[in-house]
């Protein structure tokens, strides 16, 4: 019990990093997803191909592999580019930036599919009717597309978020001090790895359960099951 009080706060202090990282990655993922969906739905072939390459590539490669490529490879790439062009000096990518970028980029591909699929499921007649009425794009998005697309994409969006949240545990491998990393350290220092890993287990379960509750509220609002 004493060890739990000695090291417990350190483990829990990782929660803020886990949450910040998850939210930052989510924002980036939504951005990447919007761009990806726009590219896939565009009438230009080149954009379609790029969008398809993005989703196929990202969904074919495991997240940790991409994260390591971005963290280690990206670092080297940026610096050798800087050296070759002489435009910038040595830049060090922080693990936080690499983690956020990697997770955001990866989940952007899943978001692309979520957005594209939901948009495709909206009744085309309504979209055309609204445009034919002379609605401005902003009004059209707000009044016609948004209310219909939200319930359609909510289930898959929820799922993406839950998977994203759990994926953030991987950043402990590139040295970010999140819940997982701290639990591992606490376990090593106290020689009670089971206790602290179980604490991390409980923290993640709590976070996913909380998110689940939040999204359930949203689903109720949109009268979804």
């Amino acid at each position: 019990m004493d060890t739990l009080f000695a090291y417990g706060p350190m483990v829990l202090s990782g929660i803020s990093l886990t949450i910040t990282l998850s939210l930052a990655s989510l924002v980036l993922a939504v951005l990447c997803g919007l761009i990806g969906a726009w590219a896939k739905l565009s009438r230009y072939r080149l954009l379609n191909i790029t969008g398809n390459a993005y989703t196929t590539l990202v969904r074919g490669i495991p997240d940790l592999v991409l994260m390591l490529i971005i963290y280690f490879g990206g670092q080297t790439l940026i610096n050798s580019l800087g050296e070759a062009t002489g435009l910038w000096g040595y830049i060090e990518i922080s693990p936080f930036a690499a983690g956020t970028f990697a997770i955001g980029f990866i989940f952007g591909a899943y978001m692309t599919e979520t957005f594209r699929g939901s948009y495709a499921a909206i009744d085309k007649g309504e979209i055309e009717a609204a445009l034919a009425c002379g609605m401005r794009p902003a009004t059209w998005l707000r009044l016609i597309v948004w209310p219909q697309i939200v319930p359609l994409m909510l289930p898959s969006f929820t799922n993406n978020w839950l998977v994203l949240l759990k994926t953030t545990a991987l950043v402990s491998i590139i040295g970010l001090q999140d819940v997982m990393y701290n639990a591992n350290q606490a376990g090593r220092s106290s020689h009670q790895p089971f206790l602290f890993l179980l604490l991390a287990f409980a923290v993640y379960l709590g976070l996913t359960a909380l998110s689940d509750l939040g999204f359930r509220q949203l689903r109720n609002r949109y009268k979804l099951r």
Partner: protein
Amino acid sequence: MDFALIFENWPLFARGLWVTISMVSLSLALGALLAIPLALVQAYRVPVVGRLAATYCYVFRGTPLLVQIYILYYGLAQFQSIRDSVLWLLLGNAYSCAVIGFTLNSAAYVAEIYRGALLSLDKGEIEAASAYGMTRAQVIRLIALPQAFRLSLPAYSNEVIFLLHASVVASTITIVDILGAGRKLNSTYYVVYEGFLTAALLYMVVVLFITLVFRKAERKFLAFR
């Protein structure tokens, strides 16, 4: 990129590929078996046991696989009683720890898929089977389960790819799987791209292969649709 280095080390990657494939196939097979009772007790609302199975699935789906694997490999080693027991034959070994972890995790996801399929079965078919005088066990074994397996196929192919991707965490508990081989190459020769990019490519090839196999399987087993 030093392609010669990659080709010189092909046995390393071949071994890694074999480790990943054997580990994932073994876990998938065991997980699919374990998922059957987990899904049945939930779908048929068996009192108490059904609830327990639902909790099991919720907990394993709500926490990162990395935490689960660490608890099995690093956490349980904390207890002298476990190290002295027969269980240690399995838990003292990284490979079998990974297989146990992947199996328990995959079973939770696959049980959800089966459960959904069991609930979406055609009522008429089940009623017809009972009307023929089949016992409940016969209906489940001969009608419900085979149908549920077919309906699960598309979702199951996603789970297979998901587990393949998730299996990279094995490289964090000293296993030399595909990613482990990449990491080993990088750290031995002080390079950044070669190992990770080769690993990424190998994973993509495996994903492509899985996709093709399941497309064939779906065409065969879901031909009636």
